[in-house]
């Protein structure tokens, strides 16, 4: 599969979050951005067909709908 390269402009804060997540997840910046894109597409597809996204904390028995624009 062919690959394309792009330049991504991020603020210092965004870059720091990217680096922190890469460290936490053990991923390269490219791998993390690809993972984020997959996740965004998956959530968007579900929302588009009428599903809702919930976040649940099992120990605190909290459940809240996550608003996705």
């Amino acid at each position, binding site marked *: 599969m062919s690959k394309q390269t792009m330049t991504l402009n991020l603020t210092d804060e965004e870059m720091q979050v990217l680096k922190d997540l890469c460290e936490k997840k*053990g991923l390269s910046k490219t791998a993390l951005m690809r993972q984020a894109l997959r996740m965004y597409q998956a959530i968007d*597809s579900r929302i588009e067909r009428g599903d809702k996204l919930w976040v649940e904390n099992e120990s605190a028995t909290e459940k809240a709908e996550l608003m996705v624009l």
Partner: protein
Amino acid sequence: MPTRTEIFLFDVASGANCPAEFWDSIQERHLLDLEGAWSESLRQLRAKSNYVRQESSHWNWRVKVNSIRGQLGNKSFAIECNNHTQGVMIVSLLSSCRLPAVKGKPLVYVDYLETAPWNRPSLGVVRFRGAGTVMVSAAIQLSRKEGFGGRIGLHSLPQSEEWYAKRGMTNLGPDKRYQNLSYFEMSESQASAFSPEE
């Protein structure tokens, strides 16, 4: 365009390796084979007195494949040999590890894996050996390619638990949020033992 890679499955009758093809996505030809030859084989096996009910018999692969079409977070695979589909698999790239040492790190999650009815020891017939191993290896390779270190996870049907345990996966026990199916995970080191990096 799907990519095909030459592999081998072990032909039990001849005792020799048989050339096979590993496809990097399930195609219409595979679905037709599942709806035709696989269904017919299961129908014949069901008629036998020693038939063991197959826990995956309700899976509808056409629906499953259609539901992931165009989704970057899922991939499908198929193995062909002797003009028939010998195994199929769908994986997700959106799951995280549960093993304490790597909790929260990404892995390749095997959503569905099924071998042809004529390749299942539980049905008393094994024509070709190796389809399941090829699929697990493929999940590990994908995990490495995506930077996940070979880590994979899955929920196993009871009939397959022993098979995954024998492949060195850690059984984290029944998952009450997933029909009480046992959750298995393979760490980076377990993946290296199962399928060493080239």
